[in-house]
């Protein structure tokens, strides 16, 4: 390990060692594991997981979401203070790079690290823990609202190395925040293996938006573990419009009555890209509700996976769980694996799920063409309509608009390799 790491507090070194030992034992996840059934990580077999050395600089593009006052930029997984603007925050809010905080006030991080995303059952979390170093810490005290979105941009230089960012998000009772993640990767390839640990106190409200717009050479594996307190709300939307392999595993524990979770997303998959969305909503308390709406558009040889599970624990009465998966296949080879799962151990609950997989509606296509719209444009309009329906779940207009532009970029550049080259140009 590098010298920067060797000056760490004992507990942190122990945590890393534990992660390393665990990963040593398990190795990469295999498709024999239920959670990884449809996503193979063969391409990571010969991958070196060691982070790239610091010092690489890539210029970040302009902010994504209009009205963003707080911006953190990461290059190769390392906080880039020069390109970041923490901005003016309400009193006692902590928003900083993880490495800085570990250096200066490790005691603030210790109670939050490794508590939600445990390395035990998850090889990729173990790997992230082994290399734990930098990331984001957001601590919003009780009753405080950070109104402006906090935007985090992840860039990578000309490197094929890995990075293992860790996000620690902690909202006190009735606190509020809006988080926007934007993953831009690099055309050289590389792996971002990110872990986010989110803790929401009673009545807290977190809006969490994630955009993947990496070149096809980039790979991203994300694990999000969130715990949601009484009457608190976790709402996230992920748009995957890039990345050769993007795996999002989201686990939300509704721990107290009245907690709600909404985990929505859209994946736009072309070329030989692969997108995996695996969600577990763990209803631990009564009177909680959850919604999952996932929509996919798959073209060429693209492949998508959606596994969504609603687990209702004993005693979690009056649970309201809902899940919907809709997929549009645009080519004969395009593929989706959908695995909805309900595991219910309470008798007074309302849970439903539905899944559709279809192709562009021939009647609609003819209707548009009969109105003079050329076939290619008519197809694009129908796809755009489908994606528009998905983005409808984003309740912040500024975010919806910027994600809409990212989707439109995808639509325009579909099957054109130059699109990927462009998105990394700084």
């Amino acid at each position, binding site marked *: 390990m590098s010298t920067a790491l060797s000056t760490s507090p004992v507990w942190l070194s122990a945590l890393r060692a534990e992660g390393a030992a665990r990963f040593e034992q398990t190795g990469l996840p295999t498709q024999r594991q239920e959670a990884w059934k449809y996503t193979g990580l063969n391409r990571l077999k010969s991958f070196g997981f060691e982070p790239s050395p610091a010092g690489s600089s890539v210029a970040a593009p302009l902010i994504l979401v209009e009205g963003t006052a707080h911006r953190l930029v990461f290059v190769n997984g390392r906080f880039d203070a020069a390109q970041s603007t923490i901005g003016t925050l309400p009193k006692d809010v902590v928003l900083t790079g993880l490495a800085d905080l570990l250096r200066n006030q490790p005691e603030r991080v210790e109670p939050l690290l490794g508590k939600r995303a445990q390395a035990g059952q998850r090889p990729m979390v173990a790997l992230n823990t082994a290399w734990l170093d930098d990331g984001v810490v957001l601590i919003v005290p009780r009753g405080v609202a950070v109104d402006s979105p906090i935007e985090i941009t992840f860039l990578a230089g000309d490197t094929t190395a890995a990075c293992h960012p860790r996000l620690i998000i902690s909202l006190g009772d009735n606190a509020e925040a809006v988080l926007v993640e934007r993953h831009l990767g690099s055309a050289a390839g590389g792996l971002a293996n990110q872990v986010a640990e989110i803790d929401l106190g009673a009545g807290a409200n977190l809006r969490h938006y994630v955009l993947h717009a990496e070149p096809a050479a980039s790979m991203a594996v994300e694990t999000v573990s969130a715990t949601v307190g009484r009457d608190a709300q976790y709402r996230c939307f992920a748009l995957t419009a890039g990345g050769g392999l993007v795996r999002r595993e989201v686990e939300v524990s509704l721990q107290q009555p009245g907690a709600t979770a909404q985990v929505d997303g859209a994946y736009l998959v072309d070329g030989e890209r692969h997108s995996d969305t695996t969600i577990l909503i763990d209803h631990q308390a009564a009177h909680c509700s959850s919604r999952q709406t996932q929509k996919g558009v798959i073209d060429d040889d693209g492949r998508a996976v959606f596994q969504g599970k609603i687990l209702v624990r004993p005693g979690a009465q009056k649970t309201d769980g809902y899940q919907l998966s809709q997929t549009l296949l645009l080519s004969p080879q395009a593929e989706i694996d959908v695995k909805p799962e309900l595991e219910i151990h309470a008798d007074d609950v309302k849970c439903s799920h539905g899944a559709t997989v279809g192709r562009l*509606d*021939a*009647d*609609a296509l*003819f*209707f*548009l*063409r*009969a*109105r*003079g*719209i*050329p*076939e290619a*444009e*008519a197809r694009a*309009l*129908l796809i*755009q*309509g*489908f*994606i*528009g*329906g998905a983005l*409808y779940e984003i309740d912040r207009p500024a975010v919806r608009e910027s994600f809409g532009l990212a989707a439109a970029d995808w639509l325009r550049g579909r099957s054109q390799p130059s699109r990927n080259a462009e998105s990394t140009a700084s």
Partner: protein
Amino acid sequence: MLNIENLHVSVDGREILKGLSLEIPAGEIHAIMGPNGSGKSTLSYILSGREGYEITGGSVTYDGKDLLALAPEERAAAGIFLAFQYPVEIPGVPNATFLRTAVNAVRRGRGESDLDAIQFMRLIKDKSRKLGISDEMMKRPVNVGFSGGEKKRNEILQMSMLEPKLAILDETDSGLDIDALRVVADGVNMLRAPHRSMLVITHYQRLLQYIVPDRVHVLAHGLIRRSGGPELAHELELTGYAEFAEGAEFTDGKAA
């Protein structure tokens, strides 16, 4: 303007149009009536270029061109418009976006420049008000959640925006209440012009009181069995289609 000669059309090996001939001169309105399943909608789809039909014989000439050789969008640019019997819902695409895309596509096809948002709004405002289509309906996805009558009015709005040369109305009157029927008929009559022809498919004489046709044809079992003036519609209202049963003799197979 339109000349259909001896048109044979099959679906899945079953012949639906069996040598149909029909001529519509410029400026005329022709009505087609006929029993359910006789091939009226099939004819309208063939004219607008829908896929899935096998044309086994005959020809369709439009403005001196071979209509059947054109793609649907080329036909639209050339002035063909079909008001669908069952208008299609398009989730996620706002009605206004769809209409502007269509208007500009047709304009491009005709060698005209695009309308910008302001020009488009100006054009649509007046037309949509006349048809009782609210701003709110323009923002909603195309036909999604529209009532039957709203869908039909929306079809007529599209027609008036696209200003076709040959408009085919496939049962645009069905599902309309009496007031809406008037509104739609007014919309159609406003478009009447010496260079514009119409083919009106209907089951009811009532529509033809508002849109008075030059000729009325009876389509039964894949053929035009009889043609006449507007009075033929009245007669059919009284007698029904019994005389056009399968195999019955017919004399006037081709419209004048």
